[in-house]
């Protein structure tokens, strides 16, 4: 079975639905978390998730915004060879990476579909890190988040 690569691609702006910026009335979120949310909502865009030739379309908000800060530990687990899931529940999508090179993309919910793939875990981990840097970098360059906060987060999360 050929080895498929995972890729995240940020596409055009998403305008079909305007979400309200999630509020943080209790002041629980950090500046980075809140800024990232604002970026994802106000600059919402389609994001293509591709594994080999299969592609799925998800959104910066609410899909990627809920995942992006967790990508570093997922990448670390991939590199350690332990089973791990990449989950996009708003789009009812989950990519499961087994202990070896096997991966399964599953669409759940009302219509269920699965597609098995063989992946290179190090490529997947690298792509997750690249994508995380990409999203955070965009949010920083658009001044939604502070560059220093991003740097500190990346350093702390081992990204």
């Amino acid at each position, binding site marked *: 079975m050929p080895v498929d690569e995972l890729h995240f691609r940020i596409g055009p702006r998403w305008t*079909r*639905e305007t979400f309200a910026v999630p509020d943080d009335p209790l002041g629980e979120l950090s500046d980075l978390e809140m800024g990232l949310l604002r970026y994802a909502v106000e600059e919402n865009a389609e994001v293509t998730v591709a594994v080999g030739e299969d592609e799925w379309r998800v959104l910066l908000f609410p899909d990627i915004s809920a995942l992006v800060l967790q990508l570093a530990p997922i990448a670390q687990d991939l590199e350690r060879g332990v089973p791990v899931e990449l989950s996009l529940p708003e789009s009812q999508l989950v990519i499961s990476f087994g202990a070896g090179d096997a991966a399964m993309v599953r669409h759940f919910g009302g219509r269920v579909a699965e597609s098995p793939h063989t992946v290179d875990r190090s490529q997947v981990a690298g792509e997750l890190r690249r994508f995380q840097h990409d999203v955070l970098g965009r949010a920083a360059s658009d001044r939604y988040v502070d560059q220093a906060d991003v740097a500190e987060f990346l350093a702390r999360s081992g990204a």
Partner: protein
Amino acid sequence: MEAPAYIETFVTELGDGVRDFLAHQEFGLPVRGLVEGELMPSPFLTWKTPKSFGTAALTSVGADGGKALVARLPDLIRPSDLGELVNRGRKKGTVQVTDDKTTWSEERSNLGPATWYPDVAVEVGQALARRFIESLERITQRYLDARVATAVAEEAKTVQCLTDAPEPTDGVLTSAPIDVLTANALKAGLVKFDWPGYHLAYPTSVGNKQVARHVDFWVEPAQNGTYWVRVSSPADPLPEEVAVALFGDTAKTSRLAVVSPPLFGFGDASGLRPEAQARFADAGVDTTRTGDATAEGMKGPLADEIALAQSKVPAGSDKVGVLATLNESVTVLDSFATTGAVFGLGKDPTLGGVTTVRDRLVKKQTELATATEEAAAKWAGQVKDQRLILSQALDGFVSLVERFEGMTQKVKDATAKLGGFNLPPYVREAMHSAAAQYVDVVATSFFPATAQPKLRAADLANRLLPVTILEGTMAAIQRTVDDALAEKRKKDSDHASYDTEGMRKREVELRARLGAIKVRLIENPLSVGDELAELQAEIVDLQTEAEIVANMDQLDVAWQALDDSYSVWFSSYATTIKIRNLKMLGDIFHAEWKGIFNLWKKGDKASRDLAKSQLDTLRAKPALAWYFGKLRETVKSAQTEILIGKIVAMLVITVVTMGVGEFVAGWVGADLAAGAALSGRALLAVGGAEALTMTALSQLVLDTDHSAGHVAWEFATNFAMFSALRKFSAFAELRKLGLIGTASGQFVLLEAMGLAKDEIAKYARTGKHLTMEEIGQITVQSLVMFVALNGVGRLAQPILKGVRGSGIKFGTARAAANRAAGSVKAMNKALMGSKDLNKALEYIKAERAWVELKIKAYDQLEIDAKAEAEAARQSGKKVKGGLLEQAGMTSLEDVANMKAALGEHIARMDAAKTVLTLRPLGGRVFGTPRARIGEVLDQLGASKNPVTTDGWSTVRTYEAKSPDGKKITIIEELDQYDRWMVKVQKSLDGTELAKWEETTGRNTPKEVYDRYSGDTDLAVRTVKEDVREAAVGSWESEGGRTAHEGAGTAHEGAGTAHEGAGVGPAGGTFANVIASAGVDTNVTVGSRGGWRGSGDPPQWPNPKSTKAYGHVESTHGPRLKARHFQGRIASTGNDQGQWSGPHWVEAEGRTPQHPGRYIVEMGRAIGRVYRANAEIVEGVTRAFVQRNPDGSINSTYPVTNDFVL
């Protein structure tokens, strides 16, 4: 010789010895006490001749010693085993064990020499005395009732007032074989009864004739070798009456393991009366098996009925209160599990476990949360009683663990520390046994009445630990002395001076005294006083002496062995020279040793100090270590090597023993376990021996905080009439944790206890029995009274009036203090005679502010006075009529004293405040009123983010740290107004809840309660109407087809949404996890499971918490319009769910506390789903929930029944 043969051989000594031991014991006459469920000595019953009971009881059945008594012992001491007691009391046999490399001696607990040890009789006598104490606790009240009944009947018959009540004419109900002896003795005229006094105190009492009534019952199905009967008549059957019906004898009552009238359970059906046997046969029950009735009862179909029957439902109970109490139990239990980790709880199967209990509690929470108000409220008594049992078990367990930690604190090896392997086996086993008893209490707590006696037994085992440890020490002395005696010594030899026979006599005498103290500790701890400490000192002395003597013997044996070796094996010249040199060196050490021993024998302090010092010197001599090493190397004989090892060990032990006063908890054990006995490292290395004696332990237990302060406190508040004040002893934990100052805390508690005692004494004079609830109220009231009486506000006067000419700062500070004085004075006056806790707290707050202002004024006075003095010094003029004089003071020291006194007062009032706001729930778990939680957390410097929030009762739990870093758990307590608010809130959906908060957020729960006159329905109806009015029309413009599914009855939508009052998490529906995927059960996180994310935990269960619930409100919230979902559907092709209210909070609560994806059945309508085919499915009842690894919710939305993971 094994125990049965030993008993047969020494039957006369054993029987007579037990009789004699009993004859020296004084027993009490306990009756129902002032506090419900507690016993106390009766003021109306006294022994005519003290210490006459034991002999009279035995004589009444012809068992006054020897064989006759021994024959009855197995029945009388049950559940203790005679053989085990005999083995405990005598010297153990030893056997040589080898593993090819090493040979060592091991004890055989079932074997011992064929020698009579008087300690055996003490051991058995103690057990029998304990059974008599228990028997008197059962029988004395019955005897009193029977005697009263007889007196009343006699007075009626003779129509005259008797001055002396005759002995009962009818029998006294017995519950165990030993009760027969007890009843006989009581009725034999030993007891003086102050009948006139009793009659005056209880004029309406007519006693009780103690006649067992006939019992009708039917047989319930058996459960795994356990048997169950349900009594149909009488309505209030006594267990003794059931015992008669089943076994034909009230003395067999103890066979009923579960007593929950009308249900009774037992695990052994042998000996049933033929009639009863026939009933079981008719019911098709096989009675040949045996089982554990408590355990089976808890697992079986009768469990709930049994549990409910063991408690009374308190007045004013409600569902929210029940759920809150269950939440407390879970928290207390979690604390128990954490505390027990040092004993290996959860890992050591011999200790038992508490996970089953926790699972049952959580299950009961879920069950009652969805039950009706009435069904849930009927559990109020059981959950309260179970929580009390758990709290008390935690208290005892914590004190046990603290003792254990104290003894192992210096141990570095984690395994040794966990198992306490640095401790001697008898200490380790005693502690393990007490720990297992507490775990068993917890395991049984679902049946509170069944757990209660187990709790008492566990507490007793805990309380007796110092004695148990001393018993172990005595056993070691017994062996040492016996070994010394066994050696053949000539009368005119040096060994005669050792007086081993004298030591033996002292050992026997001390063991008997220790036994007597143990009996008194069981019955009346207060009567022991300092005796135990004094006895301990004597035991330590004897042990030291015995070990020195033993060491001398051992050294002699070693040297003798050396001589033997010389003559038998070694013939070469070189070896002979070596041996001879070693012998010479050994003689020198021997002489030095003997000198030390002689010094010790003198007995005076100076000689003993010198002996100790010389022994230290001897032990530290490198030549001694070299000598033993060389000896072992030269004499290659296994037997001699063992002897050398033994000598070295004994030498080190003696050093340890002699220095016992210097040791602190854990030190000795740690060093020995680490293989280096203090500075005797070299000796141990040479000897390769294990030193096991731990004389210091008894000292540790008796002389540390656990005994001197804590135990004394426990005793003072725990016994007899003062058991009513036990409530206060729990507050001592606050002192221990450093949450209140030692001196100020003690002052507050002792003063308040005094006030409570006076209050309780008033009740005592009326003959009333107080419930624990009432005692709790008196406790709080006495603390309020303390605040009122000790408040200095009532004495408030303007201060420092006469001071003129000081600066502006002083004038301002004085004015502020004097302004505050007026209001404080009024508050103090109002508090007098009040029992209001809140008023007391308000007063403390105001008084503190006032006193602080006063201190500031004195601070300024001090500054100004110093400046004045300095100015005078520089000018060389004397100050006349200066500031201090104007203030009525003579020196700056007076100012400092005044400030110190004010500071001390603040500390006392702070302590009172802490005691008033923190209710001990066991160990380091405290409850605090919801209204006070903020200030309590501030006071403790704790985070205001709860660690858990109970979704059912909304109770939040917080964590704080004591000054010494110990974790403290604080649980919110709901008063009746808080509970009412929760009840209303649980009947509202998210929109309604927001409206409710909008209209009531600024009021106290009591104000809101009063606004609606406590009418839940009215409050719910009002808020729903408010919301409905505001919402009409908001949905109708959205269009789309509608469909219904799921529960079907709840229809939600524009203008037509209706949810009946009471529908909600607590509205009578039940949730299940329908499916799950990607679950990581190794991680427990969530609102009840903990937080693993960054920063503080989210604010569960606030629906507005973005950190907890993510963006759910933005993406699936109830306020979104249909077009939002239609746009998303068009892009993704996925169905989209919308919540009808903030039910995601409940969905999270019902989702397992592990990361993963779940479909949860909510059991009621929670929202709608927009289908990709434009259909709208209303009233869906399931939710998709994805939990992140940190515990937060990644995503959650309503789904249809065809949604799969």
